């Protein structure tokens, strides 16, 4: 039974995304409901397809209402969702519910990315749920009697409604507490992404922005493929450092470029923390293709061939175009690893090149 609606639902989602029945796309409207998450108001998108019908137009819009008010008073609350949503507190309404998972799914569909087949199996552990938590909302069947009682008691005492002679406790909805499941997530297969970026003088703001966008999407996709994922960031100019995410995207240094420094640090990281037998390793390296010397490039290729590539799922090199770089490095890499499937090189000319490049990186399902 459930299966059947899933089929209709998927078909609807596909029409909304414009993947099938493109002639219906023009009838899609984006409605929303206003919901509440904690204290914040959030907007929940409800896409709808309005089939054309013979209907009345708008001109005499109006109707019958019920309630207090003088003639000429405004009629509030004609909005959808709950009454005064967003009014009292002047809150910002956040868009929700295009979850990252959904985005990744769309990305996967758009680029026709294959599912990644994890290498090496670490013992698979399951996800368990324990009824250890308490929430303020929930179905009646999960109501926690004692907690609810305690809340009601507290409230009645505080409000002076409690009479020890006649100890009647009457819970109101706000007193209710419900049992809730606490999800315990345990890693199944592990993956680590190691981002390396050239931050030498030739990498400008635009180049970093491109890397940022691209790595965000790579990250998003890989996260849907692995339950547990670690991310490491390495920046380099003439020397390499491990940095945090913020620094990775914002740092601008000047100076020369010695790519091997990054590869060496990457290798060191793998040896210390990420045993290739337990981890699926995805190093990504972005640079503008300018290296200090051809000698260093040779050293890089040696490092890759002998140590890094055999240990990882796939080594990806993305070269962003910059005004200063020679762009030589990608050619050297391609020449050295012509027949090696584990090394993927991608040339990213501009922002429009990001999507095809993601496909190049992830299209192999490794």
């Amino acid at each position, binding site marked *: 039974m459930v299966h059947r609606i899933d089929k*209709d*639902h998927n*078909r*609807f989602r596909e029409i909304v995304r414009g993947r099938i029945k493109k002639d219906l796309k023009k009838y899609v409207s984006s409605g929303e*409901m206003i919901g509440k998450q904690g204290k914040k108001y959030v907007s929940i998108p*409800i896409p709808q397809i309005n089939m054309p019908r013979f209907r009345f*137009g708008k001109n005499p819009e109006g109707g019958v*209402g019920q309630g207090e008010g003088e003639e000429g008073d405004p009629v509030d609350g004609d909005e959808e969702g709950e009454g005064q949503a967003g009014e009292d507190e002047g809150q910002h309404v956040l868009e929700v519910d295009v979850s990252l998972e959904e985005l990744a799914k769309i990305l996967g569909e758009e680029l026709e990315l294959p599912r990644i087949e994890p290498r090496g199996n670490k013992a698979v552990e399951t996800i368990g749920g324990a009824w250890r938590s308490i929430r303020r909302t929930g179905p009646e069947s999960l109501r926690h009697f004692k907690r609810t009682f305690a809340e009601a008691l507290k409230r009645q005492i505080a409000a002076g409604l409690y009479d020890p002679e006649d100890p009647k406790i009457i819970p109101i909805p706000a007193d209710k507490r419900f049992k809730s499941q606490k999800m315990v997530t345990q890693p199944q297969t592990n993956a680590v992404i190691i981002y390396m970026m050239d931050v030498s003088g030739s990498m400008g703001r635009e180049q970093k922005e491109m890397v940022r966008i691209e790595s965000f999407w790579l990250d998003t996709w890989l996260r849907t493929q692995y339950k547990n994922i670690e991310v490491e960031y390495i920046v380099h100019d003439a020397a390499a450092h491990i940095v945090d995410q913020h620094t990775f995207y914002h740092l601008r240094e000047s100076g020369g470029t010695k790519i091997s420094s990054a590869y060496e640090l990457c290798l060191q990281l793998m040896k210390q923390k990420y045993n290739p037998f337990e981890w699926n390793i995805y190093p990504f390296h972005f640079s503008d293709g300018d290296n200090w010397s051809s000698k260093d490039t040779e050293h890089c290729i040696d490092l890759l061939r002998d140590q890094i590539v055999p240990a990882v799922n796939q080594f990806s090199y993305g070269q962003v175009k910059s005004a200063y770089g020679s762009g030589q490095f990608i050619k050297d890499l391609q020449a050295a690893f012509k027949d090696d499937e584990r090394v993927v090189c991608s040339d990213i000319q501009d922002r429009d090149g990001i999507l095809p490049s993601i496909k190049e990186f992830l299209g192999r399902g490794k």
Partner: protein
Amino acid sequence: MGNLTPEMRLIHEEVKELARNYGLDTYDVVFEVVDYDELNMIASYGGFPTRYPHWRFGMEYEQLSKSYAWGLSKIYELVINNDPCYAYLMRANSLTDQKLVMAHVYGHCDFFKNNYWFSKTNRKMMDVMANHGTRIRKYMDQHGVETVERFVDSVLSLDNLIDIHSPFIKRDREPGEAPPMVQETPKIGAKDYMDRYINPPEFLEEQKQLLRDEREQHFRFPQEPTKDVLKFLLENAPLESWEQNIVAMLREEAYYFAPQGMTKIMNEGWAVYWHSKLMTQHLLQPEEVILYCDHHSGTLATSPGQVNPYKLGVELFRDIEERWDRGKFGLEFQRIEDEDVRRDWDQNLGLGREKIFEVRKIHNDVTFIDNYLEADFAADQKLYVYGFNERTRQYEILDRDWTKVKNQLLWSLTNFGQPSIYVVDGNLGGRNELYLYHDWTGVDLQFEMASETLKNVFSIWRRPVHLETREEGKPRLMSFDGKDYEFRELSPSKEASEIVGTESGKEGSQP
């Protein structure tokens, strides 16, 4: 049948017994306990889990499940007009809620069985829907999902073009022979010397004209303008047999659902009346009172700018009951002007209960409001008419005058608040073109949407199609010939509107 827990089964027995004692007359009711996701799914299919596949149900489902997940709304009851009457209960609801819903369901089920507007609905709709599902799936296998779905989409966009009164009208005289050409004028038999007095020339001319009209009417196609556009298409459009079957099936479903749209206020009002009666007078345990009140008042809550059918319905039923209990009806009462006398009027007639059973039998929302909504009620219920103020750019309360409130309500309920469209001519100019007529009542169509809909009519009729309508009172003709869409002015043609002979007249009756 059903999968109630023993505890719930006991409650069901109790509710059934009580309902019967109050005179509610229902089919057997089968309760099915489902979880929230199943309930959302069944609700998306309009209550029929075995329906044909269509993305529209998926759309419904997305909306229901999102709004449930975010705690914005939750379905309490889902009842199917069928024999036996199927009703769904949500597993996670408290026992108090289940009681309430069961009592509520008995109200609906009594209404389905006894209200006149439901008397022509198929009571084996569960089976019919399943058959429709099987057939449409089979067509999808034969002709491809895309093809069949595209056709279903076109028909769905026209499925409001039915005549909700047609199940009650005996028509379809066999299309016998055409009346003869006028040769000799039928005379009233008279002696020669009396003939020119009994059959004066004017009279003869009139008779001739009548015959000519009758003959002309016979050759008109359709003979009389019909509001059942779907039926006309079904019988006359050049459709393949599977397409014909789809039109027939979707039309049948539209007619099945129509009475529910016509009686929303009454049906909900009736169900609320009975759940509140059964709960407050019999079923409620002391510890359940707060929960019950909470949920009951949630059901009846009003929000500005909207009429809550549950609230309006139950209040009006209660008002009628009280008025007939106290004899507040009839000429004598109506003539009283003194408010105090009116308020305290009581003849101890006790006719209320009997009256509301009668009302639930013969009325629909339009006649219900038309007959029983009166000044005192509108004032008690604080009803008002609102509209958009161009100057302040907001919706404002316009009037509390009860006649205006009533007119506005009736207007919005008539024909489900949708435009009335007729087939006037199926062979326009002898070219097999379809001529539709919109009976304009003061409000324009949404033209952009209408043009798209007209294209869907074309995709079924497969010859050029036209729709006569009006824009701010001025006649317009929309045409689509398969390639080009045209929207043009029309020299005021009285013909079509006279043919249709509208009840409402041509002037705007929108309050």
